């Protein structure tokens, strides 16, 4: 079926290396999200899978076939573009049926398949309109309709929701998730939005500067980031990083502290760490709690944002560094008041300084 495998895939434009040796395995029926900041090469990688960009070296396999040199149409892929790329002079019906028209399908077949796609995407009433009469979300549906009507092995989505407003983006995100369940096809989805990545993906590939930072299930990446980049990229508000000094090493455990942090023993699995080393301690704002009179971190409240369900507190630590805490209830703090914060040492991450 449609397993996708990238082996040491590289892409260069002259002397500029955009993709620097990427290995990814995507299982049949999996929803894989490529996520990363702008310019990390995620869209280029998707376009290489689609066949819109050449592969400089390495091997790309879709199903059992090496497709490096196959044109897009022979790869069995469908793609949804960020700009929708729906044909402006065709009606919605003609747009959705485009792939079928190209392959010379009969009118009955086209009508049946377009009707089915329209039903799945709930756009039966739009079929005779022109793209200029559609809203952004409706255009996106048309683009998805054009992709699903051919029943491809693999769907490629290139930042499909980034031109939509926030509310619509959430609706469409859920629809794409449902669509994946309905169709059971392999999907690759490119986004810079970590919420889309976390909610949609079976497997997330975090990319930076053309290299894979980490591959794994969303919660694995969230709870066990392989490096500082992944740790800081996933989660909102993003993880706090504190510079700490290693005070002692005891088997797998490392004792760290700094001017604002009382000595605490945490896991040293990303080590090795030696006594006296500088290290980075990552704490998710959500795992911090207020501990009046006790606690491991000490500072003063600089700013609070009350969101109802949670309160985001910016704390200036005793050593002058900022820290964000997201407290899971509505709480009132006076700016400038002393605050003591506690955390579970099993939920923090110690990274070596690179």
């Amino acid at each position: 079926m449609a397993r996708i495998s990238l082996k040491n895939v590289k892409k260069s434009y002259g002397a500029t290396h955009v993709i620097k040796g990427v290995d990814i395995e995507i299982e049949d029926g999996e929803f894989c999200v490529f996520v990363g900041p702008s310019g990390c090469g995620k869209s280029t990688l998707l376009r290489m899978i689609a066949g819109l960009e050449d592969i400089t070296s390495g091997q790309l396999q879709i199903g059992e076939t090496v497709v490096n040199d196959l044109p897009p149409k022979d790869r069995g892929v469908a793609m949804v573009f960020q700009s929708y790329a729906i044909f402006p002079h065709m009606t919605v019906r003609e747009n959705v049926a485009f792939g079928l028209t190209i392959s010379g399908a009969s009118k009955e077949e086209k009508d049946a398949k377009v009707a089915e796609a329209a039903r799945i995407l709930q756009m039966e009433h739009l079929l005779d309109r022109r793209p200029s009469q559609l809203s952004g979300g409706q255009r996106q549906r048309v683009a998805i309709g054009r992709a699903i009507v051919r029943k491809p092995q693999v769907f490629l989505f290139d930042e499909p929701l980034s031109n939509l407003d926030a509310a619509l983006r959430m609706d469409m995100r859920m629809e794409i998730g449902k669509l994946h369940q309905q169709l059971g096809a392999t999907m690759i989805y490119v986004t810079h939005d970590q919420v889309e990545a976390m909610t949609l993906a079976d497997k997330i590939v975090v990319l930076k500067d053309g290299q894979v930072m980490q591959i794994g299930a969303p919660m694995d990446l969230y709870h066990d980031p392989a490096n500082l980049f992944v740790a800081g990229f996933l989660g909102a508000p993003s993880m706090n990083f504190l510079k700490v000094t290693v005070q002692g090493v005891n088997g797998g455990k490392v004792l760290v502290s700094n001017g604002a942090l009382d000595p605490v023993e945490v896991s040293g699995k990303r080590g090795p760490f030696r006594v006296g080393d500088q290290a980075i301690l990552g704490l998710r704002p959500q795992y911090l709690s207020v501990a009046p009179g006790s606690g491991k971190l000490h500072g003063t409240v600089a700013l609070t944002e009350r969101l109802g369900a949670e309160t985001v507190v910016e704390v200036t630590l005793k050593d002058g560094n900022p820290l964000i805490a997201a407290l899971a209830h509505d709480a009132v703090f006076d700016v400038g008041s002393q605050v003591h914060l506690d955390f579970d040492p099993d939920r923090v991450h110690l990274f070596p300084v690179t």
Partner: protein
Amino acid sequence: MASKFTVSNRTGWLMAGPAVLLIAGFVILPFFLAFYFSFTNQRLVSPNATEFVGMSNYRQLLGVTTLTLDPVRDDSGAVVMKDGEPEYPSLRTITRNNPDRPDLAGMREWFSFSLGGDSKTFVLARDVVFMKAVVNTFIFVLIVAPVQAGLALGLALLINQRLKGINVFRAIYFMPVVVSIVVVSLLWRLIYDGQSGLLNNLLGAISFGLIPPIDWLGNPSTALGSIIAMSIWQAVGFHMVIWLSGLQTISPTLYEAAAIEGASKWQVFRYITWPGLRNTAVLILIVITMQAFGLFAQIDVMTNGGPLDSTQTIVFQAIERGYGKQDISGGSAISVILFIIVLSISLIQRWLTREKT
């Protein structure tokens, strides 16, 4: 309250003034004068006062009628044959000094046809040369507009690629456009020369002398075709650039989407490129049509309307009349007729290619 533009912007008016005056003097005024003169008997230089003559110039130009004649029969009633053809009464006897048909006075045969039977129908025109000019101009437009637009589109598609040195090709195809049409016409007169012209030499060389030299511009059956070919070549680069600008407004993602959907090159052109060029096509068609109706310089330099009026055109006639024969009113009437023809055709083209909603 007066608009800000008319009151406080004196500098603006001063700057626009010379251009406004020149346009008024050399474009707008002549346009209305042409209408006025076409209803008078104005001559370029004449001691007589101008008289208003109504539609007479137009009647003179556009007068066309038909006359059906029976063949000449001898006393026994048999058709008199001459060179194997039935003989007909001489038209001159009917159109000159004929008190029975004063309406035919001064008309000449344009062409004739036979609808079966012995009788023959003659189409008579008051101004046969003008009629030939109209027909030639329409032939020119009907051939040049589609062929030039099509060739220009082909060239634009060829040069709309990212290739090394593609700008060299763009420059080469565009070059004839920047050379004066008079110079181009002179050069092509040499190319078409009946004795040792480049074209005859080339044809002779590639056919090993089988194709005899042809006097391209001196032969009524090749003269107009030669001018058509050369005119298409000269302006094709200009329209290529317009097509190219149209091509570049089509979003590249549409081509990518089509590639992923599996469209062949032809299907990409049919479903993406051509619909995307719709507005450009309308523009190009109208521009070529208007330019083609204005055919003059090539004729003036290469053939002067000959041989045997086979390359007469409307504009050539207008200028020939107005200045050559000093008949400003006749030339004006031709200009007005041309204006009405071009205006109607442009309106029809716009209506045919309108955006259907």
